[in-house]
């Protein structure tokens, strides 16, 4: 037994903030003091509050230290570990109560409304030690399934829980498994889609980094349910920490006989391999993903036949997302009723969202379905920084749409999001404030899909490119009102004629911004003005003569010599020379340079 546990976040966010050096320094100091039998230092997965990384928690006090530096290690050991005095200056402010005592983490605004199911072990266990996963009931669900349940029982339980695919489309997981089970064939496959490509989404990565065994256990359960003995995890090579921890986890599971032949003496065999993706967005599409696993170029193919009938290597296959799998062991252990008691009628359970963009608490949150956008953005996320006004949130990445400020009280579930022109997607939530131009946002996402279109079908390959060019005309101020109508028409054409989900959803950002922010498009086209002041071609920097003191600072810093004027006289910007870099505005001490 250890008197104290120090948990250091080893997620990608905190690691990039040097948390592994902090871990090494802690271990070295603990050894130097001869405390290794009393104090246990562990690296864990993501705590979720990435904005404040590197993060560390010291138990049993539950002291939550944020933005820790390597230099702080000695103070933490000297004060907290040796003398028992908490280093208050490093505490996350939210955890300090008015009387100076420590509040439990779950009472802080960021964690209070969260309900962690898929993320339950992230930030709690060491993902590189199977024993710790087992200590938190790991592999008990697999044991229960193999010894007490028939494959059909498993599928019925999952169906009854109401779990729907967390990758985006929201297909009922139990039904998917049932199809695969019913498909005839002696060889079937279980695949995991860990090719998380949406800009701004990182929950799959965090689960693999923080709790890889949950995914492995769930895949074994799925294999038992449909009658498979081989699984593949398709994970992008850009996630090196996730790949490394998965590799360790699979090795440990094999050593314990939790993967391999005759698991738990039940006669059930299952093994698992990792396949690395080269980072093409289209490989997150199920048919393209399987084509890629087969060793071909990652291109989608038409459905039907669906993978449950004819999937990987032409055999019945199920493909689920990482987060979907992470829910499975919990459903088996706690029961379908427990899971179905969370969320809304048609969307049960919880959903993980990756908060990014103009939001205070950037990070990972897991909330019951039906929580409103307002609760996520204001109560959990802490609102937009610098007192800016919330304008819209993009869900579903390049396949989704934006949710404008007036719909912020919409309860989030699969069907509500589709009804307002967006989609759940994998759970990226990018917040935009008044300084974001919605046309520019649509252009950003479309540029991404133009890049990532695999080129197999014309509608997507050429359609998205033409659509992107039209958007460029809007932001350049050369579009006409007819172009807006043409754009809309082209959007529907692409949606209806593309082969796979990538093309079918690619125009969504354009359609939803056109729907909710048509006035911004019209301001670009009709008034040649960008209301948010983002689109450079439509911007003009000006010097307000009354405010200008003639200090010449702007003229001296202008990289192209566009500013002229004599000392102590108001200066002027030559719009023909100006490249709109904004240096003059940053340099001016009197606020005389304005965007018009």
């Amino acid at each position, binding site marked *: *037994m*250890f*008197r*104290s*546990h120090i*948990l250091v976040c080893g997620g990608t966010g905190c690691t990039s903030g040097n948390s592994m050096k902090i871990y090494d320094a802690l271990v070295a100091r603990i050894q130097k003091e001869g405390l290794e*039998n*009393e104090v*246990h230092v562990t690296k864990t997965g993501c705590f979720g509050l990435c904005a404040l990384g590197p993060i560390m928690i010291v*138990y*049993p*006090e*539950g002291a939550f230290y944020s933005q820790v530096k390597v230099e702080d290690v000695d103070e933490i050991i000297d004060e907290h*570990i*040796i*003398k*028992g*005095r908490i280093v208050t200056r490093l505490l996350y402010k939210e955890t300090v109560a008015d009387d100076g005592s420590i509040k*439990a*983490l779950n009472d802080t605004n960021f964690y209070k409304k969260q309900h962690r199911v898929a993320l339950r072990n992230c930030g*709690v*266990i060491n993902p590189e030690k199977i*024993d*710790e996963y*087992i*200590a*938190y*009931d*790991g*592999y*008990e669900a697999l*044991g*229960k399934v193999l*010894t007490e349940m028939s494959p059909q029982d498993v599928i019925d339980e999952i169906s009854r829980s109401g779990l729907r695919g967390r990758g985006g489309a929201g297909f009922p997981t139990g039904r998917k498994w049932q199809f695969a089970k019913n498909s005839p064939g002696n060889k079937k496959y279980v695949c995991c889609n860990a090719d998380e490509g949406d800009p701004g989404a990182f929950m799959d990565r965090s689960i693999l980094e923080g709790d890889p065994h949950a995914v492995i256990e769930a895949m074994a359960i799925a294999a038992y349910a449909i009658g498979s003995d081989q699984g593949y995890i398709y994970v992008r090579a850009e996630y090196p920490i996730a790949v490394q921890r998965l590799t360790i986890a699979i090795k440990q599971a094999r050593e*314990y*006989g*939790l993967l391999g032949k*005759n698991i*738990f*003496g039940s006669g059930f065999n299952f093994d698992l391999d990792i396949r690395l993706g080269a980072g093409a967005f289209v490989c997150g599409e199920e048919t393209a993903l399987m084509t890629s696993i087969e060793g071909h170029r990652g291109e989608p193919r038409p459905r039907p036949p669906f993978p449950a009938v004819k999937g990987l290597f032409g055999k019945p296959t199920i493909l689920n997302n990482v987060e979907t799998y992470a829910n499975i062991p919990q459903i088996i252990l706690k029961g379908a009723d427990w899971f179905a008691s969370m969320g809304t009628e048609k969307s049960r359970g919880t959903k993980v969202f990756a908060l990014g963009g103009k939001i205070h608490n950037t990070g990972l949150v897991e909330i019951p379905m039906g929580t409103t956008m307002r609760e996520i953005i204001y109560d959990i996320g802490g609102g937009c920084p610098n007192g800016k006004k919330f304008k819209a949130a993009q869900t579903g990445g390049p396949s989704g749409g934006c949710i404008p400020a007036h719909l912020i009280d919409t309860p989030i579930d699969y069907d509500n999001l589709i009804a307002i022109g967006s989609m759940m997607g994998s759970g990226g939530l990018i917040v935009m404030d008044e300084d974001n131009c919605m046309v520019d946002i649509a252009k950003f996402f479309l540029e991404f899909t133009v890049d990532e279109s695999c080129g197999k079908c014309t509608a997507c390959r050429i359609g998205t490119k033409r659509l992107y060019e039209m958007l460029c005309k809007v932001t350049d101020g050369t579009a006409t009102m007819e172009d807006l109508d043409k754009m809309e028409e082209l959007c529907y054409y692409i949606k209806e004629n593309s082969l796979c989900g990538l093309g079918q959803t690619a125009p969504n950002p354009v359609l939803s911004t056109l729907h909710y922010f048509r006035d911004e498009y019209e301001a670009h086209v009709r008034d040649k003005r960008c209301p948010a002041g983002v689109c450079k071609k439509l911007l003009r920097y000006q010097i307000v003569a009354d405010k200008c003191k003639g200090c010449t600072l702007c003229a001296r810093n202008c990289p192209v010599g566009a500013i002229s004027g004599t000392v102590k006289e108001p200066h002027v910007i030559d719009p023909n020379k100006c490249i709109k870099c904004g240096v003059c505005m940053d340099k001016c001490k009197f606020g005389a340079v304005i965007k018009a």
Partner: protein
Amino acid sequence: MKSLEELRALREKMKSQIDNRSVASADETVIKVGMATCGIAAGARPVLDALLDEAEKRHLHNVSISQTGCIGMCRMEPIVEVFRDGQKYTYVLMTPDKARKVMNDHVVNGNVVKEYLIGEN
């Protein structure tokens, strides 16, 4: 690992390692050892080690053991405070053997070891 029993046995064994990895809940017994300079000088560390050792041997999962700063009566160190059922019991002038007795009599069996309490010394 060939059976579910083996998995469960491993889990029980691992549980003692992850004890203390949460904030103590209301029904837990919290034990604090004064570990400021005075406490350490008076021999608090062997006392703490003895407490941890007993807890592990006896598989006590509802006990949280940690250190605290200077309690204020340096001449009575090592001091061990036991928080239980909303009550605080302060044991003073502790030794490893006395600590083991407190674990056995008080924490496990619920009989306060009166002779070590601060009022008796």
